[in-house]
């Protein structure tokens, strides 16, 4: 494992894969570099897909910039189908075999499909993950559907709802939970965003699920909710989460399941016996790694910033030689979203939060920085239209500062700790 690598294969030609490739070249890797992608497209950017692309402000061609000297071979439109870690080869869908000295697994996630496959197949039922999804859905929205029904109470659902309102389309947003965005923002902030969405004309339904869909021929015509209400619609988007692309690793001995591909702190993939799979690394949405900001709890973070940062850690570690020269991945998750005229930023992970405090601004003004605590420590912070102090909170989270973290500060009134 200490010999300098000559052949590096990256499975997954999206943000993490490309960022790793760039970093490898920047760090002087001169050997052969192959990027494998199951989609036919060169690496592209996803965040605009649920916003600008759907609004028709730009085309779905959001190809990421590539360094002119990248000297990488792209194997596109062919998924990897099998990994043999002992032989150090990856097999592709076309039967070809790629040998590697170092392998990066960055296969990411795919949209969770609508569970009833006949309904999912109806014309007018969409998911949104890739460029082609965005192109198809964007075209449908431009054609002015009578009503858009969105299923899912996460950021993608809300961003799409916001886009639909920008396009002046009637939109119903169905959320299974009692509070929208609660998993990421907690009930108070999630509730605030829900309120704004309603003011902007979104028909937001909480604690609601679809019982069944109705079709006219092969076209979606209406949905019936569990409470019996029927909503006519010709366009439904299921934003009900993601699935990790790990099936191709079956039989490889790697520890991979629905929660992701398990890694150590240096992002090296682990075998089921807990040992390191020689030369195999992981980055991005698919990687599940011990988060130093959360007592080394295993997390997989589906954020743009993490994909890039983790790819860079991996690239460095691939070239580091042995573990003593590797660095651990200690990226603090951060995330931002724009919807309904609000800019929402989040650092850290709010999971398990037991305390919440507005640190600057107020819920009433809808301009604020809030902090989240767990067991007396600061674990996350979020801002709405007011990110100026967020870097300080980021530092407080890294330092696991006592909660609430930053007192006697500018632009701050009395801090009241409450439930999230």
């Amino acid at each position, binding site marked *: 494992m200490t010999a300098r690598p000559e052949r590096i294969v990256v499975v997954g030609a999206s943000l993490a894969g490309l960022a790793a490739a760039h970093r490898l070249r920047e760090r002087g890797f001169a050997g052969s570099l192959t990027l494998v992608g199951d989609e036919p497209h060169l690496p592209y950017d996803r965040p605009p897909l649920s916003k600008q692309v759907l609004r028709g402000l730009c085309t779905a061609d959001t190809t990421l910039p590539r360094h002119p000297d990248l000297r990488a071979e792209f194997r596109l439109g062919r998924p990897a189908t099998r990994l043999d870690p002992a032989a150090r080869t990856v097999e592709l869908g076309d039967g070809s075999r790629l040998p590697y000295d170092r392998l990066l697994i960055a296969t990411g996630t795919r949209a969770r499909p609508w569970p009833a496959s006949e309904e999912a197949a109806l014309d007018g039922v969409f998911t949104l993950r890739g460029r082609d999804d965005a192109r198809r859905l964007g075209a449908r929205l431009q054609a002015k559907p009578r009503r858009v029904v969105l299923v899912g109470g996460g950021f993608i659902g809300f961003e799409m709802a916001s886009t639909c309102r920008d396009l002046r389309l009637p939109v119903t947003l169905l959320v299974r939970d009692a509070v929208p965005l609660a998993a990421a923002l907690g009930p108070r902030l999630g509730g605030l965003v829900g309120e704004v969405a309603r003011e902007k004309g979104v028909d937001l339904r909480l604690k609601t699920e679809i019982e069944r869909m109705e079709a006219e021929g092969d076209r979606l015509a209406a949905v019936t909710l569990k409470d019996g209400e029927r909503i006519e619609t010709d366009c439904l988007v299921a934003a009900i989460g993601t699935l990790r692309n790990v099936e191709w690793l079956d039989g490889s001995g790697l520890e991979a399941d629905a929660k992701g591909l398990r890694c150590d702190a240096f992002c090296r993939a682990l075998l089921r016996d807990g040992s390191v799979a020689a030369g195999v690394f992981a980055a991005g949405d698919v990687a599940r790694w011990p988060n130093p900001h959360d007592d080394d709890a295993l997390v997989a973070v589906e954020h743009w910033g993490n994909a890039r940062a983790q790819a860079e850690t991996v690239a460095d570690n691939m070239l580091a030689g042995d573990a003593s020269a590797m660095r651990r991945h200690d990226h603090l998750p951060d995330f931002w979203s724009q919807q309904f005229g609000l800019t929402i930023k989040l650092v850290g992970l709010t999971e398990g939060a037991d305390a919440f405090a507005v640190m600057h601004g107020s819920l009433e003004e809808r301009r604020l920085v809030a902090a989240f605590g767990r067991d007396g420590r600061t674990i996350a912070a979020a801002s709405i239209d007011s990110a100026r102090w967020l870097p300080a909170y980021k530092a407080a989270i890294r330092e696991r500062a006592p909660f609430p973290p930053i007192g*006697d500060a500018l632009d701050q009134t009395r801090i009241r700790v409450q439930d999230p």
Partner: protein
Amino acid sequence: MSGSTLFERILDPANRANPYPLYAEMRKTPVARQEDGTYVVSTHAELARLISDPRISSDDLPDPRKFRWTGHPVTDLLVRPVRAEIRKRHRPFIFRDPPDHDRLRAQVMRCFTPERVRGMRDKTQRITDDLIGKMRGKGRIDLVDDFSYPLPVTVICELLGVPPEDEPRFHGWATQLATALEPNQRDDAETQARNEVCFNEIADYIRDLIKDKRKAPQEDILSDLATDRDGMNDYDLIATAVLLLVAGHETTVNLITNGMLTLLRFPGHLERLRAEPETAPRLIEELLRYEPPVHYRTRLALADIPVAGTTIPKDAPVILLLAAGSRDPLRFPDPDRFDPDRPDNRHLGFGGGLHYCVGAPLARIEAEVALVSLVRRLKGPSLVKDPPPYRPGASLRGPRHLPLALEGVADE
């Protein structure tokens, strides 16, 4: 001054020409306590963090009599006859905290419209051409006195709406204000007296100018500010006008002078700029990292702030040594190399956080027009003295003079 501590050696004018080795030493202790209780922060990550920390105040700056590194809060003198509490309330917004800072800054930002700033390019070019034209027939010039000084003050006069006939008076005041900003000069009784006369003159002048603008508003910043519906009162207006004059002036002088000095030290980059003027924007960003006009800013800790293993205690003065952060090898590979092609060049040249330089877009335009014109039109420029003599200040750092030998001046 036998520099006992590292930071004292940085302040020592003897080390002005090349403080960077001292900065490298300084960075070994990212947050360093000084004997007088001041904390000096010198590494990029810590600077980037503290510059956006709500426990760091720009108001209530430390007493300049106690801390010798403190710059002169010019407007303190400017409104000297006014009671202390009013004086404090009407500091320019660079020395204020939210919410007052935000209100005043927002009013100024509304005046710095992108169209207006872009419109300054042609004017800057015209002033530049004028100044270079005057160098004809000279075998030797002082870039500072002949060019870098008059250019920005003329630009800011135009922006503020100072009538052209009054510009010479403004030039005089600007020079005097620059002297007043030097910490090392302030104990001199004669300078003090001169400063005071100058401040009273400029305050009276601006007060009158504001009256005129209210009666007959024109297309300029002072007219906009004076007629703003939720406008500033006169104290704030005067403080803001002086701030724009000083901040928009002193710094740009140094940016242009440092720029030419750097280009003459690296003739390859000078030739490249001459041949490819479109590379100017990146070159200027690198200049802002490599030879920034502002080397440090001062702040005050409002609470105990733990950072990089040290706790800055409540009420401690804090020095943000931005220029050291912009040469931090942990952030910029090979930081002492001047490399305009540097990717990801997020320097601290314009500061950061809520006090990020309002004039940044204007400064970029001025530096771009100035440097491109200078390298295009000056024939065979060479440094007469390297390093040139520096002004004593460590905060706003730049050559006092930059004598250049010329073979001639090309036509426009």
